[in-house]
């Protein structure tokens, strides 16, 4: 048995011969891990999930799911799926929904009854089991959808926007369910826009942009070499430019100033999305951008100095200089990019500093 729950190679989908939704996806998801799929709107996330669930046929696909080729129908007996914007027939009651979809998953009747009762308890809507789903709130329908996805006791659970429309308490409950499923050694594949939610539960993530996997790995792998130190001082007397001078003066060796990224001609107002993690809108910043003699990137913003290094020794001379000048240090902390930072990096064109166009690529005449 393969150690991979999902092993996708060369997955491509072109709609009506024009829209390239997926362009050669390579992705591996190990058994028992929680895998997050991120991407802007139109990146191809739902297309990929639907290909796995046989809802969409791929233009090309050489992957396997639970060791069987993608599209192998019997394998779906071991897969649970919560579609985005799912809708259950309003004439069914909660328990009947679970019974119906359990039966469609070939779950025996007795087992269906047992699991339906158990899952309704787990997702917290046991009291609503005998009420028609037409009267359910969006959050309750989402909980029922998750229960539906688990009816066949799946080895792989694919959740498409599981926290969509769910209140904070519900989100926490869903996180708990995901954690419980992981503890049960199930593989969970989550597609979500809520990066903070994913960051809390995912072991590994893949970021999909314009039908291609931009980044894939654990958060540590993806943020390797992107750690930085942030040092904040107590404001000196005077205005913010005094703080800028103090912090610049504390930088060791020769410092080369860099030009901040420019807005493209003809644009105004909203500045470009920058590749720098946690970068606030440029226009609001009062600061400095440059590099030290050894190439380490530094940035000053108001009272904060950011040094892009994971080596604590690189910060020590700065602290010494500041202390020597009697500057009070309010805080010093090591930071790593968040999932949101990674996401923003992935959707930014490194050359222009602009966000990549959302949506799939369209095939042009003569293009192969």
């Amino acid at each position, binding site marked *: 048995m393969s150690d991979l729950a999902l092993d996708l190679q060369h997955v491509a989908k072109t709609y009506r011969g024009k829209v390239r939704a997926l362009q050669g996806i390579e992705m591996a998801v190990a058994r028992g891990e929680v895998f997050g799929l991120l991407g802007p709107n139109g990146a191809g996330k739902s297309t990929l999930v639907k290909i796995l669930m046989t*809802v969409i046929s791929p233009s090309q696909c050489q992957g396997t799911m639970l060791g069987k080729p993608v599209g192998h129908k*019997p394998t779906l007996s071991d897969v649970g799926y919560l*579609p985005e914007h799912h809708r259950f027939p309003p*004439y069914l009651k909660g328990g009947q929904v679970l019974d119906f979809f359990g*039966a*469609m998953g070939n779950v*025996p009747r007795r087992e269906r009854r047992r699991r339906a009762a158990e899952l309704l308890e787990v997702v917290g809507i046991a009291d609503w089991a005998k009420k028609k789903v037409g009267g359910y709130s969006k959050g309750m329908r989402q909980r029922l959808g998750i229960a539906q996805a688990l009816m066949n006791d799946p080895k792989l659970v694919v959740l498409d926007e599981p926290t969509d429309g769910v209140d904070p308490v519900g989100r926490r409950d869903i996180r708990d369910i995901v954690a419980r499923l992981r503890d049960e050694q199930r593989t969970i594949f989550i597609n979500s826009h809520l990066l903070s939610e994913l960051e809390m539960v995912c072991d590994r993530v893949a970021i999909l942009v314009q039908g291609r996997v931009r980044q894939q790995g654990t958060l540590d792998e993806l943020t390797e070499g992107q750690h930085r130190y942030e040092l904040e001082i107590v404001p000196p007397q005077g205005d913010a430019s005094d703080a800028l001078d103090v912090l610049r003066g504390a930088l060791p060796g020769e410092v080369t100033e860099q030009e901040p990224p420019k807005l493209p001609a003809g644009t105004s107002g909203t500045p470009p999305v920058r590749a720098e993690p946690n970068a606030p809108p440029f226009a609001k910043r009062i600061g400095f951008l440059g590099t030290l003699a050894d190439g380490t990137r530094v940035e000053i913003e108001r009272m904060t100095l950011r040094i892009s290094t994971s080596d604590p020794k690189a910060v020590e001379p700065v602290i010494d200089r500041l202390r020597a000048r009697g500057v009070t240090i309010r805080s010093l902390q090591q930071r790593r990019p968040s999932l949101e930072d990674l996401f923003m990096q992935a959707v930014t064109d490194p050359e222009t500093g602009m966000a990549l166009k959302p949506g799939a690529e369209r095939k042009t005449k003569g293009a192969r």
Partner: protein
Amino acid sequence: MLTQTLALCLDAYRELNARKLFWITMGLNIMVVVVYASLGINERGVTFWHWTFDVPLFNANLISPELFYKLQFVSWGSGLWLTWVAVILALVSTAGLIPDLISGGVIETVLSKPIGRVRLLLTKYVFGLMFVVLQVFVFSLGCFLVMLIRGDTFVPELFLAVPIVVSFFSFLFCVCVLLGLITRSTVAALLLTFLFWFVIFMVNLGDQIMVQQREQAIVALEDAERNLENQITLADRFIERREEEGRTIEDADGNAITGPDEQRVAMNPALERSRQRVPEAEQAVETWNTWSQRVFWLKTLLPKTGETTGLLERWLISQEDINKLFEERTGVNPGDDDNDGPAMNDPRVSRRVTEVFRSRSLAWVLGTSFAFEFVILGIATLIFVRRDF
């Protein structure tokens, strides 16, 4: 596999049950059976509850209770209620089965289960037909009991209405399924199916008119030929009488006519008119025959809704009974008519038209209709299997 099929069956029942129309149609079915049971026939005419309506040509002296109940069942029980009103209600009830299935948010969940698309679509289709099976079965059972109790007749052939009406419905339902898949809209699928039904109805009507005209032309030709023979016989008699009297046959100028044909015309001027009528009638037969053949081939491509429901009449009521009814109602025997041309309601024409429709083979009526259904379902399945949702 059985688990999934049972689940789909139960879901189809719940869906139809939720639509209420299932029970409304069932209630109406029972109401129609009650009306059927209230009808009767006695020596004076037709009875309804305790009222009697005097009908000279429709009473127990002329028609047996068995034939009476069979005729009522075929004419308005099956012919009107089951194949019109109940089918419309059934189409309204089931038209949404496929558009609802393929609507966003539903189809993704269903397709993510280990069930093939072909089986899913065909199972849904079959359970759509179950709606009609149940309705027609209940109706037929009710009518069967009425016949048994009131008509004192055991007619199990009545249950042939179930496969016949279900086949009839399936010819329309397959189109509704295909249109539902293409348009994804219940209303559009329903309206377009009704439009298709109307087209079939018009083709059927055209066929009936063409066959009626052709048979009328054939009867007219037979009449013209018979009339010609009569005129010749009459002329020969005149000639014989002249010869017996020793008189010659002369033209207007007093010249003797020697040719036998000229003598006949001279003795019976109406012969010339009768002769002219024969090729005219032959031409009319040829023209209507060509047109009726064209309509027939067009019909061959389409489902035979009219003939399909006509099968019930064919199997329940014999040709002898039909002939007897024509004779009793009109008192006319074929061959008695010496008029210039048959009227539209000429019983000979009506009988010939009935015979033409009843003689159409089962293979043509059902075979080509099922072939149509097979093709339409094939296209629908192909679309469903290939579509990305």
